[in-house]
């Protein structure tokens, strides 16, 4: 028997994501995927405990960032160089990437985030690991699955 006339709405799961800039594009990545965010002072990756630095512009286009920020991924030993970090937000929903998008972006993104009226892609961090692994296979653990498939797809568009 219910104590109240109405059931309370179920709480929605909350995920913290970091918004960051790559050129003119604002993208998001799950905060739980990051070990730290640091200034890019031109250090070698080994100097801050990483195996490789991947410029996000190599994946998403634009000029390589100069003196931007580094998103250090958790577990993979890869840091991602970006133009800037916007802020941390909490989201309650990730929208599916429309099926009309059928290129490598299906692996680049976990989905889309709505922030007000703004649509922001939520990046799959594995694509950065794949990029690093292809560039320096000896030092970065191999990624698998969708990210590898997406990279191959990008290299050889259908």
């Amino acid at each position, binding site marked *: 028997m219910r104590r109240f006339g109405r059931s309370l709405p179920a709480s929605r799961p909350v995920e913290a994501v970091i918004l960051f*800039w*790559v*050129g*003119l*594009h*604002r*993208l998001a990545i799950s905060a739980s995927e990051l070990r730290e965010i640091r200034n890019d002072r031109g250090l070698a990756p080994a100097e801050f405990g990483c195996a490789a630095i991947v410029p996000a*512009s190599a*994946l*998403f*286009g*634009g000029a390589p960032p100069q003196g931007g920020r580094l998103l250090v991924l958790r577990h993979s030993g890869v840091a991602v160089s970006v*133009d*800037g970090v*916007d802020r941390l937000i909490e989201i309650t929903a990730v*929208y599916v990437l*429309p*099926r*009309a*998008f*059928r*290129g*490598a*972006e299906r692996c*680049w993104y976990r989905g*889309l985030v*709505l922030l007000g*009226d*703004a*649509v*922001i*892609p939520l990046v799959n961090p594995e694509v950065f690991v794949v990029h690093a692994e292809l560039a320096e296979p000896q030092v970065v653990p191999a990624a698998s699955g969708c990210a590898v498939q997406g990279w191959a797809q*990008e290299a050889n*568009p*259908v």
Partner: protein
Amino acid sequence: MNAASTHAQSFVLFPLGERRFALPTGDVLELSRPGRVQEFPHTTPGLDGVLVRRGRILPVWDVARTLLGSNALVYKLYLLAWRKFDAARECTAIQVSGECQLVHGEMQPPSDQQPAYVRGSLWVEAESVQVLDLEMLAAAQHADGSQPRGAVAGKEKP
């Protein structure tokens, strides 16, 4: 002569630059007001970005690139049309140059010289209007070649 060419059907005519094209009314959801196209990096040819309508994220498709060989048109409205993806269907916003028109008529089968994305043609006001097959049009656009990754410029600025 097939059944499609012997029975009057209804079609939505839409302008694209100086020309008009048609879709069967069953493929069309509504005509929508202009809105902000939000762009992010992707590799799917023909897609300009996404549009938010009533809390839903819709891909925005520039069909003029394939139909007219140009993407320099001025777009005023969006024709929201259904596309099929296996068993599912998804709404896509097609950019059009102006108001649309509902017509009834008999679709004539396509000639051998017409592209595969032409289902047939209608005779409307002394003009032959091509009736489009959106899935074949998407396939043709994909075959035209993919745009470089990250080629889509963003609207937002850091």
